[in-house]
C-alpha cells in the first residue's frame, strides 16, 4: 500500500533567462513502513526530489500525494503543520539547536509537533527515545560537546520522537566513518521498523544499501 506517491513531478530552476529542468517527471511510490533508498550520480536530482517530497520546496509540475492528499495544492501553513507533526528530517549535518541540551532539543520537537503530552509524559518519552539511540547518558550535553556520530543520533531521535509517519533522510551517514555509519543505519532501521515509519533516504554509500527494503536509482532527473 502506497502511503506516499510522487506522480510525474517536474522541477525547473530559473536563473535570469536560463532555465534548467532538473526533474523530468519523477514517479515513485513509497510503501508504508518501508525504507526506500535513493541512489544515483551526483547532480541527478536526488536531494531535489527529497526536499520536494518533504514539503521544503515546491514542484513546478506533477503531484505529491501524502495519504491521498495533494501537497502541491496546500497552503504554506497546511504544509508546515504536516511537516511538524507527520514528517521527520535527518540531513547530512545534524542541524541541532546550539543552545539547547540534548533533552531540550527533543522536548522542543514535542512542543512543535503539538503532541498532547503533559510535561511528565514528555520527559518520559524523551528518555525512552534517548535510550533507543543510546544517548541517555548525554541528555544534559550541548551539541558542541558531542561527536559527529552522537550529534547524528540526537538528530535521528529528534526526527522520530513525535512519531511521524514519514522520515526523510538526505545522506544521514555522509559525515560519519563506516563504523559509526553502520551504527546510525542500524538505529534508523530499528526505529522505523518498530514505529512503522515510512522512510525515504538518499545515500551514496553502498554499505548502507543492505539496510533498505528497496533501492531506487535516479539518473538525469528520472527514476530508472
Amino acid at each position: 500500500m502506497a502511503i506516499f506517491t510522487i506522480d510525474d513531478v517536474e522541477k525547473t530552476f530559473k536563473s535570469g533567462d536560463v532555465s534548467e529542468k532538473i526533474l523530468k517527471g519523477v514517479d515513485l511510490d513509497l510503501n508504508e513502513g518501508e525504507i526506500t533508498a535513493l541512489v544515483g550520480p551526483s547532480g541527478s536530482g536526488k536531494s531535489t526530489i527529497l526536499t520536494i517530497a518533504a514539503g521544503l520546496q515546491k514542484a513546478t509540475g506533477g503531484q505529491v500525494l501524502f495519504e491521498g492528499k495533494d501537497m502541491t495544492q496546500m497552503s504554506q501553513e497546511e504544509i508546515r503543520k504536516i511537516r511538524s507533526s507527520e514528517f521527520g528530517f535527518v540531513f547530512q549535518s545534524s542541524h541541532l539547536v546550539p543552545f539547547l541540551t540534548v533533552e531540550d532539543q527533543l522536548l522542543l520537537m514535542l512542543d512543535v509537533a503539538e503532541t498532547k503530552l503533559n510535561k511528565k509524559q514528555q520527559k518520559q518519552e524523551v528518555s525512552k527515545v534517548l535510550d533507543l539511540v543510546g544517548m541517555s547518558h548525554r541528555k544534559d550535553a550541548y551539541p558542541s560537546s558531542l561527536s559527529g556520530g552522537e550529534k547524528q543520533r540526537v538528530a535521528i531521535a529528534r526526527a522520530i520522537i513525535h512519531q511521524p509517519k514519514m522520515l526523510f533522510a538526505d545522506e544521514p551517514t555522509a559525515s560519519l566513518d563506516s563504523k559509526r555509519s553502520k551504527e546510525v543505519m542500524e538505529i534508523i532501521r530499528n526505529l522505523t521498523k518498530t514505529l512503522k515509519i515510512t522512510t525515504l533516504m538518499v545515500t551514496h554509500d553502498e554499505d548502507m544499501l543492505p539496510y533498505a527494503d528497496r533501492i531506487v536509482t535516479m539518473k538525469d532527473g528520472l527514476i530508472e
Partner: protein
Amino acid sequence: MQMAWKEVKKSKMKFLILGSIIFLVSFLTFIISGLANGLSEDNAALIKNVPNGQFYLNEDAKQTYNLSKIDIDQQDKLLADYKGATAMSIQMGFVNDTDDKQHSVAFVTSTDSELFPNVKDNEVVLDASLKDDGIKVGDILTNNQFSGEFKVVGFAEKQTYSHAPVAFISMKNYQEIYRVMEMQTVFIPGSDSPDSIKGLESFNNKEFLNTIPSYGAEQMSLNMIIWFLVVISGMLFAIFFYMMNVQKIGLYGILKAIGVKTISLFSMMWYQMLLITAVSLVLSVGLSQVFSMVAPAGMPFSLPIETSLLLSGVFLVIGFIGATISGFQIKKVEPLQAIQQGEM
C-alpha cells in the same frame, strides 16, 4: 518561551554586552533628563509651581512679559470677574545684605493670592537657597533704587526664576523700585480654554515658560540630547538583533523546516529584547534615583520617578520597534537554505 531564556543563559556574554549598552545609554538619558528638569526648575520653579491656568499679557508686549503693562481698570475688572485671579510682576534685580554683599534676585510682587506669599511693605520673603548665602530671618536688605529697607520675614521653598532666587515684595515697594504702576500679567487659574479678553493675549503655563528668554533654548537643546539618545538606543537594538539574526539564519531555517511557526521565532526575539531591556532599565532607574539623592546640593538635578517610568516606556517601545524591524529577515528565511548551508 523557554527556548528564548535558554539561549540567553547559554550565550550570557552576548546578552550581557547588549544589556550593559542599554543600561549605559538609558542611565545617561535619565541623568540628562534629570539635569534638564533640574535646570528647568532652577530657571522657572516660580511658574512651574503655579497650577494650570492662563497668563494674560498685553497684546502690544510682543509676547515678552517684561514689556507688558495691564491697564489698572482692566486689571481690577479681571480680578473681580475671575475667582482666584492674580495680577503679578517679575523683574530681575539685586539686594544688598548687611555685609553689603550683592545677591541677584528676581523680584516678584502680586495682588493678594494663595499662590504667592503675601508680604507687607518693607518686608521680603526669599527663596530658601539664599539661606546658604548666610541670610537669616530678621536680616535687613537694601536695594539702591529703594528708599527704604527690606526686613527678611521668611523663606519659601523652591521659588526660583531665571536661575535666580525669588524675592517676594509688596506691590508698593515694587512700584517704587521699578517706577511703574501697572502689573505685567494677570494669571487666571484653571481655564483650559482661555476666554479671549480684549487687548490681551493669553498663554498657558507652558507657553508662558517659553516667553522666558533662555528657558526655551536651554530646554530644547537638552531635550534634543534626550531624544537623540532614545533614538540611538532604538538603533542599537535594531543593529544588535540584526547581527544576531544574521548569525542565526541557519538555525531559523532548520527550526522552520521542522515546523516552528515564524511568529514563535519573533516571540523568541521579543522575549529576549523585553527581558534585557527590563533588567537594564530597572538598574538604570534605580541607579539614577540613587544619584538624584546623592547629587551635590548646588547641582540642579531633579528626576521624578514618573519621568523615569515614562522614559522607560519609550525605551521599551523603541527597543520593540528596533528588534521587530531587524526581525523581518526571519520572515524571509527559507528552510531549504539552512539545510544546504551545512553544519552550524
